[in-house]
């Protein structure tokens, strides 16, 4: 298992093949055309795998769309460079009672068309999101009943049950603010064709599957961006995106896998940058059936899967081990809880104690994109005697089975990953720990009580206590095999200066471009 070596060899082979080929090529055609488009100046060009699905920020909920739209729109709260919650369009927030969150807005903010961004606009935005007719895929505001204007710069979100992390949730697109007057004027379809927000960039043009251009907003409340134009280019194939970087057609290639990143090693003028990320991977174990009902078996699997080795060998070191499934940056993480020791001998003893001295047969289901990881985990488990066949399914099938009523649809073990964008541990466990949740395969009255405590308490100290106890319980009972949080990986040329937050969204307001 030495990907760097084999990658280099393959790339060299391609280079050699390339040198042999020009004999076949078309010198005649080439003579007629100029050099590749290398126009630079005060432009930042960012490639990611696809385009935003729509430019209506309330009708999308996927990372590639958010990456673009966060540059056109603002949210009520935001994340500072330290990943802490910081003021956005709201300057401050309080919870006067457990069912209400009150936001005081930043005065003087205007949309790109001059329309004021006030409490009416915020209330309109939240209520539009909640209206089923909007068909919004944004689900964070599930406990919000409605938004109410208190005065010109004060707005309240009224909930059906306590939701302590509303301020974190409105740092995502649940808290995006859209212009009511403009929407009334052009309608939803017109808005999606020419979006208008309060953000650091204004919309210029969008040619789907080709490019999306925006210009610096001189009147941005957070200060005008330091460069003039921001262009997003959709490039589905990582090899050709990296080739575009090397031929100076883009400045940043985002969302790379460790595997793809290795292709670019050794080229001058381009580099790989990886930053800590929060996407957390784990194996979900079906504790309701078979050998996995026994806690010793589940602990054995945790001892057997050598996560540091996995990170080094398969992920090129671009990930961090996690003790449970809470990412280090999330509220609720407790550093005093340590990861499992990696010990095949101990794993074998635990299996023998549980009545499986010769191990057992099982399967791991994973998405096709995660095949390397799943195969490697299968190999690590085999060392302890657990023979796990790897079943690969496409993303669509995986998602359907994950959320189906049959909680065993993905088999006894499946490889999962979640991005807790709220940076609150609740997002990591809300759908798969309490026994009655959609993806839960574990029943523990103690865990249920702790989940209720952290979900329904507003006061942070109490929530932290519940989270700490929950992490101890998760580690002890091991209903999951805890793996790692993967880095955010970018390939860049020498022009941009920019540092992403752990959430990994491509907000470019503070980026700088050397010309």
């Amino acid at each position: 298992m030495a990907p760097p070596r084999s990658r280099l060899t393959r790339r060299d082979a391609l280079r050699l093949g390339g040198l042999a080929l020009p004999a076949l090529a078309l010198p005649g055609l080439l003579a007629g055309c100029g050099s590749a488009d290398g126009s630079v100046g005060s432009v930042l060009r960012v490639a990611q795998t696809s385009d935003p699905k729509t430019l209506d920020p309330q009708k999308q909920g996927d990372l590639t769309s958010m990456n673009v739209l966060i540059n056109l729109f603002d949210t009520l709260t935001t994340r500072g460079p330290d990943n802490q919650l910081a003021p956005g369009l709201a300057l401050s927030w309080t919870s006067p009672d457990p069912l209400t969150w009150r936001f005081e807005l930043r005065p003087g903010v205007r949309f790109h068309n001059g329309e004021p961004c006030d409490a009416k606009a915020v209330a309109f935005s939240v209520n539009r999101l909640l209206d089923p007719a909007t068909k919004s895929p944004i689900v964070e505001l599930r406990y919000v009943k409605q938004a109410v204007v208190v005065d010109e710069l004060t707005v309240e979100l009224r909930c059906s049950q306590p939701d302590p992390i509303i301020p974190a949730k409105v740092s995502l697109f649940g808290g995006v603010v859209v212009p009511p007057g403009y929407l009334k004027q052009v309608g939803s379809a017109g808005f999606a064709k020419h979006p208008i927000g309060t953000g650091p960039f204004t919309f210029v043009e969008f040619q789907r599957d080709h490019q999306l251009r925006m210009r610096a907003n001189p009147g941005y409340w957070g200060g005008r961006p330091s460069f003039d134009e921001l262009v997003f280019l959709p490039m589905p194939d990582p090899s050709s995106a990296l080739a575009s970087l090397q031929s100076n057609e883009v400045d940043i290639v985002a969302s790379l896998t460790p595997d793809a990143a290795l292709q670019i090693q050794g080229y001058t003028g381009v580099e790989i940058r990886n930053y800590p990320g929060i996407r957390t991977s784990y194996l979900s174990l079906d504790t309701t059936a078979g050998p996995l009902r026994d806690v010793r078996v589940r602990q054995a699997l945790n001892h057997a899967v050598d996560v540091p080795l996995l990170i080094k060998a398969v992920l090129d070191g671009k990930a961090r081990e996690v003790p449970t499934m809470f990412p280090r940056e999330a509220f609720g993480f407790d550093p005093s809880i340590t990861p499992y020791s990696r010990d095949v001998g101990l794993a074998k003893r635990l299996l023998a104690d549980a009545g499986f001295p010769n191990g057992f047969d099982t399967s791991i289901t994973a998405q096709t994109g995660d095949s390397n990881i799943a195969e490697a985990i299968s190999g690590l488990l085999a060392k302890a005697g657990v023979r796990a066949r790897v079943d690969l399914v496409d993303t669509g099938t995986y998602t359907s089975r994950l959320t189906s009523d049959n909680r065993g649809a993905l088999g006894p073990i499946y490889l999962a990953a979640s991005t807790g964008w709220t940076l609150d541990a609740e997002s990591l466990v809300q759908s798969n720990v309490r026994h009655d949740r959609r993806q839960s395969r574990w029943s523990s009255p103690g865990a249920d009580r702790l989940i209720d405590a952290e979900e329904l308490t507003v006061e942070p100290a109490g929530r932290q206590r519940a989270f700490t106890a929950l992490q101890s319980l998760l580690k002890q009972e091991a209903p999951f095999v805890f793996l790692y949080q993967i880095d955010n990986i970018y390939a860049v040329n020498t022009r941009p200066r920019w540092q992403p937050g752990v959430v990994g969204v491509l907000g470019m307001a503070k980026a700088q471009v050397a010309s």
Partner: protein
Amino acid sequence: MTAPTVSVAKPPAAGAGVLRVIVTKVLTAIVVLFFVATAAFFLVRLSGDPVKLILPPDASAAQEATLRASLGLDRPLFTQYLDYLGGLPRLHFGNSLVYDQPVSEVLLARVPATLELAAAALVVALVLAIPAGTFAALRRGRAGDSGVMAGVLVGQSTPPFWVGIVLILVFAVQLQVLPASGYGGFTHLILPAVTLAVYSVAVIARLLRSSMIDVLGSDYIRTARAKGLSTGGIVVSHGMRNAALPVVTVIGLEVGTLLGGAILTEQVFSWPGIGRLTVEAIQNRDFPLVQASVLFFAATFVVVNLLVDLSYTVLDPRVRVNS
């Protein structure tokens, strides 16, 4: 659907025959498209539930149900089918589930790029394949023939995406004379068009070679030679025209292959065409968009076949008076 069916029609006179062929073909095409539309509708629904892909996995069942209802996916299957069929004659394909935009708008925006790429590839293929195939036929059994045929075999057996990546590495990364990907001027078109053409060059050149060899061995060519015509004159005035018939059929089929092959090529070169759109639509289970793209591909095939059939009557008078 290909050539031989033409001879079944028994036209009384050339002009009326062509008209009758066209009418028959158009009616057949409508029936074919109806079946394609039906198959697309039901097959895409077997692939699963788009709501599961639109919403994040931590959405509640109630949130899923609400979205499903607002997309109209909770209605009985047959109602949805009738609705869909009803829209087809007016070219109403509904709204894309993912892009929240009329499907016809989404689709039409990409058609030009794909046609542009396929047409450029076809031109490249013909420009390379016709001389290569003719040359090989004239040099039959000699070194020149083996050389061309070996090159052609390599072209035919190399996967297009690999050709694409190699071309990018050479011309964009190493030599930096052409853009690696994207859409815009003429320079953006060259690499994807060549990539897409490679396979078709091989197919067309091989077929032209064997067809030309047959023709060159026939009686009327021997007669022409006996009359003292030069080889060049024979090839141009007699060989080409007679060897073209099977080649035209294949070119027709190649248009289909080019459109299909465009899916991979568009992916590698970030080309904003129908191929890439369709791949994404399938991944997203965007039912209305998948249905419309499938119909688009089917309609293109049907139209190209019709044109191929009609071209026979022009190229070979025997087809008109046949039977």
